[in-house]
């Protein structure tokens, strides 16, 4: 677990899973195991892909048709 900024931690680097700092979660407890977490993330991406197809035959990325960089700006360092 890595502190990203005040109030946010990175729980799983491989899946880009961020979470609210557990010290702020004393009233609401979140208990999701690793398998479920991976399933939720995968399903979310599948769902978003399906949404793209639902609205258009093809999704074009800006970096594929212009000289825009495919990746966003680097995160600030902490």
């Amino acid at each position, binding site marked *: 677990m890595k502190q990203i900024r005040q109030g946010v931690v990175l729980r799983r680097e491989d899946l880009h899973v961020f979470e609210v700092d557990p010290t702020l979660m*004393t009233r609401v407890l979140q208990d999701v195991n690793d398998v479920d977490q991976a399933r939720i993330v995968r399903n979310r991406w599948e769902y978003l892909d399906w949404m793209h197809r639902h609205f258009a035959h*093809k*999704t*074009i*990325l800006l970096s594929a048709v212009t000289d*825009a960089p495919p990746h*966003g700006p680097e*995160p*600030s360092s902490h």
Partner: protein
Amino acid sequence: MATLTVPNPVTDQVITALEQAIGKEKVRTDLGARIARTRVPAPFPVHRFAEYMPDVVVLPESAEEVSAVLRIANQFRVPVVPRAGGTGLADGAVPLHKGILLDIKKMNKIIELDLVNRTVTVQPGLNMLKLNEYLAPYGVFYPDDPASYPVSIIGGRIGTSGWSLIGSRYGHTRDLVISLQVVLPTGEIVRLSDGGGAPKVRKASTGYNLKQLFIGTQGTLGVVTEATLELFPKPEAELAAFFGYESFADAYRSTGALSTSGLGTLAAVILFDERKVDYLRRDDEAYIPLPERIKAVVATALYGVEDEVRAAANRLFRLAKETGGEYLGDELSAGDWASRHDRYATPLHGRLPDGTVVPMSWHCEDAAIIYSELPAIKQKWHEITDRYIQKYGIFDNWGMFFYSNNPYKGWGDYLVEIDIGIWEQALNEETWQAWVNLKREITRATLEHQGSISACHGACREGDAEFIPVELGEGGFELMKKIKRLLDPNNILNPSKNYLHLAYVDEEVGA
């Protein structure tokens, strides 16, 4: 003193009449059926839940059955509230006086697909997602696309005159409905179009344009039982591009430049303010890694044939760069855009002032505001919201969006939305009244800046409804009252919505 026409309660006699008219299996009095249709997802006075629970739920399947229900309601003077998906955030489907809840979800048939004239005729209980699944093999689609796309329903879209995410390219609900079949409060079944009676003609000028009168009326003038809708070719390509800016002022200027670019494929321009970016950087995986220097964001989306989308992308990128925008990358742009069709994924938690997480429901307070007034309204709405957060501690400011709001063009007025978290479990009468007062202050600020209140979902709730006479002005609201009285002499259809209980005040009626 003036008195209101108060509707009668539902008696056993009413239930028997309903069962005889449409069949026992379509009339439900069990608690489960009634509880499930009491509220909508907008913040609700949960401590007074029972006051709004309908007495009986009916599930008709045809215009004739709807007509029979309305005739019974007139005979016994009991209220009827139409309900579609129950996602309308202005409480249109909440039964203010209990009564009969008319759920239209069983009226979900596709009546006719006319590919030659590009129309589809449906019953109102169908949702857009299901309709588009049906249409996909034919290469056409119905582009009404709210952020509640998978769950809102055509009847409710017409009832609220909904706003669509891609409306700046394809139009909004009111632009996509060609004609309607409506059951009037007194039970007559009528067909209405753009003037004239031709069900598939888009532009006419014979007689009055009665169709529009029945769009956005929150079920106060009639129940829509059939709609003929516009079809578009399903887009070959979509492209979403999100840009970051170092100040709100830069992003605001860039929004103006992008939305007046004249690009025909431009379907949406959305400006996120600093507070929205802060909120997302706190609670949304896609935005958490964004560097601190990014203070505001502009999201854009193009739809159309592939050649046009590719060409427009170049112009879009150049314009965004020239106005200070930094591309936020393919993953964030494509992923966030796809998730916008389904904002049910919004994390339903918020923070108390000390940072502690608690479950919160989402409230979106919105208005249509012209471009020149956006910075001023932003400042005022935040100032109001922060003051209430400080005083009551059960609200959370989730920032503001400014969406292009006009059909077929990006410029002009914007749908402005401030998202506020509200800790419902902590509500009592005092904090509920505080909430309503917060809404009132936001509404007043909207009117001071020449805006239109609650432009996305309609103004049916306490906090907006009482401002309808102010926004419409004396003459306009008088006319609304006259129309309501004329069509619904017994005040049975969605009574008291749109502040229309005033239409039945004795002294005003002249009784």
